[in-house]
């Protein structure tokens, strides 16, 4: 329970820090204090002074962030400057598609990556299999997600498949190393000597002993997937949070970017916390 509370506190602190850091960056980013209305020759000196005072108050980091947090408690995340729409609405409209893609992408990547890793680790004497799979993984790792997205778009392949192609080699390489390490331990040799079947060795011993690191890898793969979804959705022009983040960056929609930063920080730190809460060894609680 204590660990759970500590992790929740850590998530909250990191999310707030990420939000505050974005607010500081936003305040000091070039052009923040510039208002196009100031160029309007019809504006009187008094109006200009009032506009500047308003803008300075809006851009006060401490007060602005507290004001934002109060609004966020009521579900008001502010207004997108590029779309003139409530940010909460934009997030709720775009989140389902991205979540669905992330779900399919992660499931596919884990099925493919772990499946290949099991094959390679189980038959690690097979030079041909190891070389073929490693070469495919290496080629996929050598291409940026945006390029893979473009190639898949040209070939008419679904967006989710691009995410799978981006994540599979990463999941494969990490899990193969874990499984090869687990297969190399002496208790596996002992189990073989006692005539235990390979299937039982795999599920009862190898996967079990690699489980804690695999849990950490699940969290890391979620972070990787969130990073990859931005170029994929942007290149494939698929509606979702990734494309929203890219469009916000291109139009310098800083309020939207701050909200996305906090949302993504929350998801990533929560995933990391869940991985850390996983038992260190099978059957052992932390």
């Amino acid at each position, binding site marked *: 329970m204590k660990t759970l509370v500590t992790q929740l506190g*850590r998530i909250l602190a*990191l*999310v707030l*820090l*990420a939000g505050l*850091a*974005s607010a500081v*960056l*936003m305040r000091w*980013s*070039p*052009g923040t204090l510039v208002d196009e209305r100031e160029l309007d020759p019809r504006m009187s000196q008094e109006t200009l002074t009032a506009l500047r005072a308003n803008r300075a108050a809006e851009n006060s980091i401490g007060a602005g962030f507290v004001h934002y947090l109060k609004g966020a408690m009521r579900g008001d995340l502010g207004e997108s400057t590029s779309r003139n729409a409530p940010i909460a609405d934009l997030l709720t409209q775009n989140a389902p598609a991205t979540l669905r893609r992330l779900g399919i992408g992660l499931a596919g990547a884990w099925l493919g990556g772990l499946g290949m890793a099991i094959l390679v680790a189980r038959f690690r004497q097979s030079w041909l299999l190891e*070389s073929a799979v490693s070469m495919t993984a*290496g*080629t996929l*790792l*050598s*291409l*940026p*997600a*945006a*390029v893979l997205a*473009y*190639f898949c778009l*040209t070939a008419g392949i679904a967006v989710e498949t691009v995410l799978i192609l*981006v994540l599979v080699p*990463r999941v494969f*390489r*990490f899990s193969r*190393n874990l499984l090869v390490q687990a297969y190399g331990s002496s208790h596996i040799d002992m189990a073989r000597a006692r005539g235990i079947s390979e299937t039982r060795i795999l599920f009862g011993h190898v996967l079990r002993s690699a489980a804690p690191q695999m849990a950490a890898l699940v969290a*890391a793969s979620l*972070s*990787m997937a*969130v*990073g*990859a979804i*931005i*170029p994929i959705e*942007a*290149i494939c022009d698929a509606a979702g949070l990734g494309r929203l*983040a*890219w469009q*916000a*960056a*291109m139009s*310098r929609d*800083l309020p939207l*970017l701050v909200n*996305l*930063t906090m949302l*993504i*920080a929350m998801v*990533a*730190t929560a995933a*990391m916390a869940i991985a850390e809460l996983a038992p260190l060894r099978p059957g052992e609680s932390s």
Partner: protein
Amino acid sequence: MKSARPAQLFAIVFLTFVGISALVPRLWTPDSYETQLREALDAPPSARFPLGTDALGRDRMARLLYGTRVSLALAPAAALLSCLVAALVGGLAGLAGGWTERTVLASVDLFMSLPWLFLLLTVRAMLPLNVSPLVSLGITFGLLGLLSWPASARVVRAAIHALRDSDFILQARASGVTPWRLISRQLIPNVMPVLLAQFWIAVPVFILAEATLGMLGLGVSEPLPSWGSMLRELEGGNLRAQPWIAAPAVLLAAVVGCFQLIFPREDYSI
């Protein structure tokens, strides 16, 4: 493992060949990356233009070679910057311990709580987008260097931590060696292999990151070529009718693949 050596040798030879070609592009093409040949707009590959020309009549081969120079020269520069920051921050945390160490670890956690590409995208967006090519070059690679130190800093901190409590450091301290001499003669030489490994791991990661930023329109501005800005042509082009426009992607994959062969790592950045 027996086949790893020839593969690594091949990778080194290939990278050297690419590096020399990028340093001396005139070996392959007489044109500059910005020369616009109005009589040869969108020309297909020929003896004069091995990769054809783009919509503005610029020799793609020249742009690819100059772009390779930009990417291959600045990715190591950004990696060096990242390693320097990591050495400073990680070294300070490892040596000082206590609150300094906890603060550094908290800031590392903060940086690492966000996917790196998203962080890059956000910070890049907060800086001016409509800038000269040289400024965009500085911003892109400067950001890569300044935003990627946390993972390396954590490794350096761990290394310094282990060294701090080692027998030879204790002995040096007991012999009255000054802190500066201890750092320069004992700690830095012992941490150097760790930093060198981090440096070589970062180079291909930065090459890929620049390519992604470039494809998203947040990298190096035109007319200066880089692999990222050249890959943008894929979006407007027709890959089936003009397969040669994929040349930057092929070269990028080959170069990063060679780095992988020489310095294997599980996770290359997205």
